[in-house]
């Protein structure tokens, strides 16, 4: 059963189309990764799912209910972990979790128990009486998670939850994602860290210019470019590069020049590296570095969008 179904979703800001006729389905129990550069439409989509933004067109169904019609029911089953830490510095860790869980209708003993459980889940039991202003960045991130899960939502949306934290806290959060998933939660996970998405997501959608340009498991996505590889050549100056001449080399399917780096897409199995290097030497283009990449999620993203995820 699908926990989330999006049909023809569109969002415009004046003349700018942030989300363009997007359709998507996420099944219960999935860890679904959203990949996209800044401004691709990722956050806008999440904001429409959670009710932070109104859609211009289309439908969003969560647990079989239209979000705009049954917003209270839908909201009760969503937990949002925003990209920026959204906690009150002058309330203790316990008070923070209790306050937000209370907004979901929990009261009395149940509210207390769920608050304690959530704090325990993120490893902050010892710190429940402390104020977040005394916390490290990683602890604040964990409290940020606790505030979103105490009401035991079925769908958890994590927007860049590991930004700006130490490796230990990142590991802790990634383990938490797995644990929450094992406990029956469906997770939508966005991240700039490709390796995180590769590690934890069962299915991934790549968003560009408000549209989903590719969707599937990481194996399915990689298979989209299994017949090609990418060669990156950094030169001292790109002024004398003649793209048309590089295109004529056997097996080359695409050439892009980005500042002093030349990206060359070439067919897998064609041995043309010598010819490519020869072109640069003959034209006195001083090579500073050369990198050959086999298909992975990053090269898939690069191939499909023409941009590096972290640089965008």
């Amino acid at each position, binding site marked *: 059963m699908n926990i989330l179904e999006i049909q023809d979703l569109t969002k415009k800001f004046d003349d700018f189309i942030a989300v363009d006729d997007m359709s998507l389905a996420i099944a219960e129990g999935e860890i679904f990764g959203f990949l996209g550069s800044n401004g691709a439409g990722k956050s806008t989509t999440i904001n429409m799912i*959670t009710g*932070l933004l109104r859609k211009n067109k289309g439908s969003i169904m969560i647990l079989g209910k239209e979000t705009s019609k049954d917003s209270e029911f839908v909201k009760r089953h969503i937990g949002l972990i925003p990209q920026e830490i*959204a906690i009150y510095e002058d309330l203790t860790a316990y008070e923070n979790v209790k306050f937000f869980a209370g907004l979901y209708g929990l009261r009395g003993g149940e509210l207390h128990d769920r608050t304690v459980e959530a704090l325990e889940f993120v490893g902050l039991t010892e710190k429940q009486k402390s104020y977040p202003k005394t916390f490290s960045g990683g602890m604040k991130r964990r409290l940020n998670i606790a505030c979103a899960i105490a009401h035991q939502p079925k769908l958890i949306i994590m927007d860049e939850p590991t930004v700006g934290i130490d490796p230990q806290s990142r590991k802790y959060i990634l383990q938490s994602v797995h644990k929450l998933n094992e406990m029956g939660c469906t997770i939508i996970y966005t991240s700039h860290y490709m390796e995180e998405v590769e590690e934890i997501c069962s299915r991934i959608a790549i968003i560009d210019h408000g549209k989903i340009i590719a969707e599937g498991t990481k194996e399915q996505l990689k298979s989209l470019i299994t017949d090609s590889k990418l060669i990156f050549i950094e030169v001292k100056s790109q002024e004398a590069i003649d793209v048309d001449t590089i295109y004529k080399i056997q097996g080359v399917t695409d050439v892009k020049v980005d500042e002093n780096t030349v990206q060359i897409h070439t067919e897998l199995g064609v041995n043309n590296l010598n010819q490519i290097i020869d072109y640069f030497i003959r034209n006195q283009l001083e090579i500073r570095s050369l990198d050959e990449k086999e298909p992975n999620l990053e090269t898939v993203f690069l191939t499909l969008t023409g941009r590096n995820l972290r640089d965008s």
Partner: protein
Amino acid sequence: MNMLQIAWKEIKHEFRDIRTLVFMLAFPIVLMLVLGTALTGAFNEDISIDDMDVLYENTNDSLSEPFKAFTEEVEQSGIHFKPLSDGMNGKEQVEQGKVDGYVSVDQSGFHLFVNDQSSIEGSILQGALASFVDRYNLVSEITKVAPEKAEIVFSNAVKHDYIDDHALVPKKQPGSMDYYAIVMTTMIALYAAMSGSQLIAHERSRKTASRLIVAPIHKRDIFIGKVMGSIVINMACIMLVVAFSKLVFHANWGEHLGLVFLVLLTEIIFAVSFGVGVSFLIKTPAAPTMVVLIVVQLASLFGGAYFPIENPEGILKVISSLSPLTLENKAVFNLVYANDSSFIMPAIVMNIGLAFLFLLISTASFRRGEGI
């Protein structure tokens, strides 16, 4: 229920914010102490009034006797009535300051001319005459029913204290500490607009606005809860300031503290609503607080918070009347020092009316917009 939860959270925030507490509690108390002590001389409670000369012209024979008795009676209080001489213009004499007042008695009644109605002398004359007119009207009514008892009212056996009965200037006058206790309290109540202007903006800057919006609660609950919390905390601060000024500075808050608190409560409701309204009208993050600060400072200055503004004229009168503190202070002072509650209702109506207006603007903007 969610509304109360949000209000309670708001109260916790404010109570744990040392800067807010210092500002709301220490600021007015220190100002009371400094200004109340420094300006003691400007609030001399002993007012000496010289004898007053009043001209009169009586063309109403039926009032001759009682009016004569009245003039003799007030003579003892230092008010000397002299008949207008032929060819003399009573009004001109008053205008030129040669006499303190001129009374013309004709068939239509009494006409009093004084240079400044609100001066102490003018008020005493008005009060004395009003007292006489009341008593005369009383005699007329008694004459219709029991003529034999009418004389008793004006007989020498009955002591008349015309001035005490109807003096317009209250007998009690505030000392400097009394004055600053009231004006600093009404001023700090208006400062609730500052926290009002930050109510919603703080949720945005803490990034918690998104959490509130994704929760299954109505936007209305968020709004009312926050406003309610802010009103409660500000009112608590004001009550502490009043209690402190009463117990430590022995400031006079009169015998109707409940009514005083009612005026202050409505003022806080207005102030918070004003702050919230401005934050919705001006969207840039820092601008609403700046605008509120300027408005509150000007309202305090022209509303008599730093020094009393007595009988303003011209442009000062216009500006002064624009300050909500002018009416607030007038309502509280009249209640405390003259047992006069006639300005309480206008002050409450003004506060609630303006609060309603600003809340209307805010709710319309809040409901229409996306997120918070």
